């Protein structure tokens, strides 16, 4: 019996995955955790290449393997290094799709082996192919395909290539396709060996179709949640590979990601005060529009000129900037940092109030402001920020909307009711910058804009910030 240290290498890899993921969930250790998991991955990969034996033989085709790996490496590093920080979520989606496709391809090749072996037997496929083996293959194929195509669509949506697309009876249609996928999978198993491949490819095609219609109707802004879900799908697909090859590294790594990814998806939804079902079925948007229509918001808005706003801030003791999605869209983070510096030169204390789900991905504002070199101490978390709000003279809201909507606190009929918000109305003065009176992501009106101590400063965030800067320089 040829005994090797391969299983030990896999054990090491599994342990690094666990430790790495654990460290990734704490800010202070996250980066090291990522490196540890990567090191374990390297061990697992090279151990497989050099130590893996099937039927007593080593692996061949080294040229193919290495050239494929080099190609993958070069593209991967280039893409990962080049992409803009704000395009991170779509990049994760892209890589996730690659993993899903990889899992699907493996399963397809393995099915092909089975098919070639039994094609000419002339009996039922189920008589010759072992069930466990087949289950691992078909699960890997289906889940991998859905994950692949779904991730690609999510990527396209975030990159602005696709629009949301929904039609009436969407859910019913999706359910039917899903049933067809499963039916095709069962048919494959119980078909004559010589035409098992037809049903199999029908399964693949249907799974791809399902993936498309699964992701297409979900709102573009919900993509981070969908990506996280598809991420855990790919984990499960990888685990299927682990069953197929009795490979513990694949099994543990896959299941770990599958479980952690599912929980992470739920946590993400919870941070937005929504349920996963709600995100997937997209009923949020629908409700919200209805709510916005019935609920009428009272009062008049008050506009403020750029020069008045500049004055107000220049003579304030403390200004709290509340960044939101609009700031990211306008790419105004650098100008914002300059405004901060200009105000500080005038002796004004400037802080940022960061809501956990401001923007369109978790940590969006942190990443954005970090990119503009805003110092870490100036970023307040929601709790801290709300405490300091009372002693704030001017709360300056830059392209944020839902995260400062008081309806979350005092209107039980609002779809965002219960979500913790930044209580900017506690500040002495509130200046809101946005381009129009249009609602934000949740599609609902915001009573804040009509409050007596709120003034609106309409315009694109970047343009307004530049004008404010100009005014400040002149005074």
């Amino acid at each position: 019996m040829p005994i090797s240290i391969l299983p030990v290498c896999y054990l090491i890899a599994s342990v690094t995955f666990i430790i790495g993921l654990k460290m990734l969930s704490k800010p202070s250790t996250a980066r090291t955790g990522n490196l540890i998991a990567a090191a374990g991955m390297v061990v697992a990969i090279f151990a497989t290449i050099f130590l893996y034996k099937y039927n007593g033989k080593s692996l061949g085709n080294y040229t193919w393997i290495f050239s494929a790996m080099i190609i993958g490496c070069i593209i991967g590093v280039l893409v990962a290094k080049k992409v803009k920080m704000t395009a991170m979520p779509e990049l994760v989606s892209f890589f996730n799709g690659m993993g899903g496709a990889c899992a699907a391809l493996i399963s397809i090749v393995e099915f092909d082996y089975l098919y070639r072996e039994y094609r000419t037997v002339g009996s039922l496929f189920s008589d010759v192919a072992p069930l466990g083996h087949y289950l691992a293959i078909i699960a890997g194929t289906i889940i991998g395909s859905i994950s692949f195509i779904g991730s690609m669509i999510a990527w396209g949506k975030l990159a602005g290539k696709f629009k949301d697309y929904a039609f009436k009876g969407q859910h019913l249609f999706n359910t039917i396709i899903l049933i067809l996928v499963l039916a095709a999978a069962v048919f494959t198993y119980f078909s004559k060996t010589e035409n098992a491949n037809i049903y199999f490819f029908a399964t693949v095609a249907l799974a791809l179709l399902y993936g498309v219609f699964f992701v297409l109707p979900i709102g573009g802004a919900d993509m981070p949640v969908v990506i996280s879900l598809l991420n855990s799908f790919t984990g499960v697909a990888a685990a299927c590979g682990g069953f197929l090859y009795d490979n513990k590294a694949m099994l543990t790594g896959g299941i770990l990601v599958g479980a952690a990814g599912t929980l992470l998806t739920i946590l993400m939804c919870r941070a937005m005060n929504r349920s996963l079902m709600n995100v997937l079925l997209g009923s949020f948007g629908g409700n919200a529009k209805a709510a916005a229509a019935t609920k009428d918001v009272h009062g008049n808005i008050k506009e403020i000129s750029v020069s008045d706003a500049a004055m107000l801030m220049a003579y304030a003791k403390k200004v709290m900037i509340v960044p939101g999605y609009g700031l990211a869209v306008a790419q105004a983070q650098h100008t914002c940092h300059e405004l901060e510096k200009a105000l500080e030169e005038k002796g004004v204390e400037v802080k940022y109030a960061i809501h956990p789900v401001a923007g369109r991905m978790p940590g969006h504002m942190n990443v954005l402001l970090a990119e503009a070199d805003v110092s870490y101490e100036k970023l307040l978390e929601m709790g801290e920020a709300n405490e300091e709000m009372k002693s704030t003279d001017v709360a300056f809201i830059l392209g944020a909307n839902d995260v400062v909507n008081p309806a979350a606190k005092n209107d039980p009929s609002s779809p965002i009711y219960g979500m913790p918000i930044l209580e900017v109305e506690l500040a002495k003065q509130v200046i809101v910058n946005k381009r129009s009176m249009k609602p934000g992501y949740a599609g609902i009106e915001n009573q804040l804009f009509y409050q007596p101590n709120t003034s609106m400063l309409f315009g694109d965030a970047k343009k307004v910030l530049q004008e404010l800067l100009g005014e400040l320089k002149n005074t």
Partner: protein
Amino acid sequence: MQSIIDFLHENIEMFYIVILMIFLGIEIIGRVPSVLHTPLMSGANAIHGVVIIGAIIVMGKAESGNYTALVLGFLAVVLGTLNVVGGFVVTDRMLEMFRKKKK
């Protein structure tokens, strides 16, 4: 029913590993602050790139005449590598940004 029990019986250790892993995955993530959601998702994404092992095996055992296996295997290795390498690099880049702010 019997065949399910048989299957469980033969693979009982696998089931243990799967179940323990599920518990572990959930426990480990439980306390993550929301700022880390994106990097964590990205890191987890890199970890499931371990599927590349399967691609390597498929590729490595493909016989020279079997073009399906060779071509699909080659593609699988490329995509798998993309997942692994891209995943870890992009996570590192994100986290570098977080770290920079710290000091």
